[in-house]
């Protein structure tokens, strides 16, 4: 918590908690029923806002680009992309890492913040998790389609076969398969388990028989029995406890794709921490990108308050700092190692034919965000945050571009130096996945509770149980 000095007099701004001087996590005046109605209303309403249809269609249209791109890709082969020798990896891997990175914030919010009892997470964790899952969906497509013979991609999974051959477990790509598939599975389970009680609520509040049945089945017959709640809480805690090392491991493993290779610029021990930090960095940026328009659109600003935005901005400031340190270290080591490989690689990154990408990265990822985010004024300036989140997302994409491309195209043997030029198909497929993401997300906000009602309820003052004077903050306990 940076400063406790309120922006303006708390009496003027009801959103500011007079005790802390911080923005409140929930606007005062809410009770169990009101929050429930507000959130369930969005799902159960019978008249869908036109804006929703618009967004869904936009998403779908952009996603057709993906469909066309993939069709041509399967017809012709990865040669339609800009990949070549030496630059045998291009957009596909860059996008893969980028999307996975974005996914991380969701798990982080729902798991790590849960462990740290950061109750402010409650109102944003649900759609952060949704974002995770859809990001992983988008990310997951890339490793599959980027291989030369995608119809054989199943060979990466260990299964008994008539060839008696198995995956090669020394390869980071084999590790990826395990990491990413585990990550996807656990995220979905965690997400679903979290929604069970809310499905119960929706079942009970739904009027349309179809909705009743559907949510009824999804709720598995949840009835809020206390014994259930106890096991449920334990399970959530365990899942959170498991997701935390998982989310850290996933991006670590992905960083191994590079760190394990012998290429100067990839072959470095600093990758795991700074990949994870970078992932969270870009992830929070994406959460902001999503949260800001949504809270406006469904006027949820009393549940997703400036406090949330402020905190997320702070997290970005922190993780961004780690990333900056990473960049700094790369430069330092390239000199300190006294290794010609490292030195040349860094020189080439900065001043080689593709230097522009590196400076673009420094500008968007370090210069702009890390200077501005210190100011609380800007941190609670919704418009600015939105723009910034977009900038950081671009920056993180460039980070992967710099790592993948500029290390590859000028490596050890000068005779094999080349260059990399992305093609029409690289772009259409990349943008297509964004369409897919949007499409899925719009479906989510319409049909699933995007804010966990049971957890919001726990944050209301009414939860306080008065037992013979010994007063406790329910908020602290009921996590």
């Amino acid at each position, binding site marked *: 918590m940076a400063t406790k000095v309120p922006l303006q007099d708390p009496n003027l701004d009801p959103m500011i908690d007079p005790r802390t001087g911080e923005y409140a996590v929930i606007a005062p005046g809410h009770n169990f029923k009101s929050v429930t109605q507000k959130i369930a209303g969005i799902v159960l309403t019978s008249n869908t806002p036109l804006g929703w249809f618009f967004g869904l269609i936009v998403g779908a249209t952009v996603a057709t680009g993906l469909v066309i791109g993939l069709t041509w890709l399967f017809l012709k082969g990865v040669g339609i992309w800009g990949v070549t020798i030496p630059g045998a990896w291009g957009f596909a891997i860059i996008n893969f890492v980028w999307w996975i990175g974005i996914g991380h914030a969701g798990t982080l919010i729902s798991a790590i913040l849960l462990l740290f009892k950061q109750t402010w997470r409650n109102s944003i964790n649900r759609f952060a998790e949704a974002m995770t899952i859809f990001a992983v969906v988008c990310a997951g497509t890339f490793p599959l389609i980027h291989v030369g013979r995608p119809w054989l991609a199943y060979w990466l999974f260990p299964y*008994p*076969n*008539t*060839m*008696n*051959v198995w995956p090669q477990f020394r390869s980071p790509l084999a590790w990826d398969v395990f990491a990413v598939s585990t990550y996807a599975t656990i995220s979905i389970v965690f997400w679903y388990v979290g929604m069970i009680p809310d499905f119960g609520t929706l*079942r009970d509040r739904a009027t349309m028989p179809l909705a*009743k*049945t559907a949510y*009824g*089945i999804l709720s*598995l*017959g949840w009835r809020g029995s206390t014994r259930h709640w106890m096991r449920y809480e334990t399970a959530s805690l365990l899942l959170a406890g498991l997701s935390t090392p998982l989310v850290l491991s996933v991006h670590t493993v992905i960083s191994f794709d590079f760190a394990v290779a012998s290429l100067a610029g990839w072959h470095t021990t600093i990758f795991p921490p700074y990949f994870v930090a970078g992932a969270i960095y870009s992830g929070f940026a994406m959460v902001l990108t999503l949260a800001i328009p949504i809270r406006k659109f469904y006027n949820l600003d009393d549940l997703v308050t400036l406090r949330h935005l402020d905190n997320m901005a702070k997290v970005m400031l922190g993780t961004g700092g780690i990333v900056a340190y990473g960049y700094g270290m790369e430069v330092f080591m390239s000199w300190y190692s006294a290794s010609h490989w490292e030195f040349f690689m860094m020189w080439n990154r900065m001043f080689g034919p593709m230097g522009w990408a590196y400076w673009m990265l420094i500008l968007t990822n370090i210069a702009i965000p890390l200077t501005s985010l210190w100011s609380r004024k800007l941190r609670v300036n919704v418009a600015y945050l939105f723009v910034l989140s977009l900038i950081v997302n671009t920056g993180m994409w460039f980070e992967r571009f710099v790592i993948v491309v500029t290390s590859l195209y000028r490596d050890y043997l000068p005779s094999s130096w080349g260059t990399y030029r992305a093609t029409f198909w690289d772009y259409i497929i990349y943008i297509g996945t964004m369409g897919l993401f949007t499409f899925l997300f719009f479906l989510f906000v319409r049909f699933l509770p995007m804010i966990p009602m049971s957890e919001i309820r726990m944050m209301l003052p009414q939860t306080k149980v008065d037992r013979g004077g010994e007063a406790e903050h329910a908020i602290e306990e009921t996590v």
Partner: protein
Amino acid sequence: MAQVFDRSSNALARFSLVLTGLIVIALGVALDQLQRSPWVTRQGQRPDQPVPFSHKHHVEGLGLQCQYCHTQVEKAAYAGIPPTKTCINCHAQIWTNANLLEPVRQSWATGASIQWIRVHDLPDYVYFNHDIHVNKGIGCASCHGRVDQMPLMYQQNTLQMEWCLNCHRNPAVNLRPTSEIYNMAWTGPSSDKPVWCSSTVKGGATAQNVVCTTKDPNASGPEVAMVEGAASGAAVPNVDGAPAAPLVMPATYVKFTSQIELGKYLTAQYHIRTPNELSSCETCHR
């Protein structure tokens, strides 16, 4: 506000959960079986050939040697299908107007090949070398089965990689004396049917320098107890392994009563490469 679901739904819900699990498992098993099924491997399928040639009749019935038709099995990488001429050699005299043989006469007249359907068909990326197997003591029957009992030719084994590896990882179990290569009925030594082997490893021994017999050499007179000295280039198969070579020298025979012992012995004599080498990728894929 009554129940959304009635009593039965609980049972139903749990049942469907179990069912899903079962279906997934069943699917896995099915796929695993499918890739080994004859539908994929073509095991035991008899494609209809232009001429319904019966190995049973020609080998078992007429007692033709394998090599009479498959002349190059010992020196060619491909086993080779006999040219039309081979058929005509006999069928110029016998069954000269049998309808069955029409395609053969056609081919002979027009000079166009008889178009057989390949029965043992390996993928194009597998480089199988026939002669080395024959020369190193793998009998016809080991891969092709009892061809002498096949009215119509079919594929005995799966010819899948795992099947190849079974032998390449442990050749000993299938090795036999080169003199027994063409012996369809060969079952390997046993206590009641022992095998005696001896070799003259002087200088570079070739596989043919190892001589085996199914008769007890000490019992059955000198002509068996002696083995030829010089390496005979083309192995003239000879069921009781005593070639009528002029230059002979006394030999010390070893008695074998189990395939494993014999296999070990032959592995050493034939210099069979180690399983590690035999199961290395480049052995079959280039």
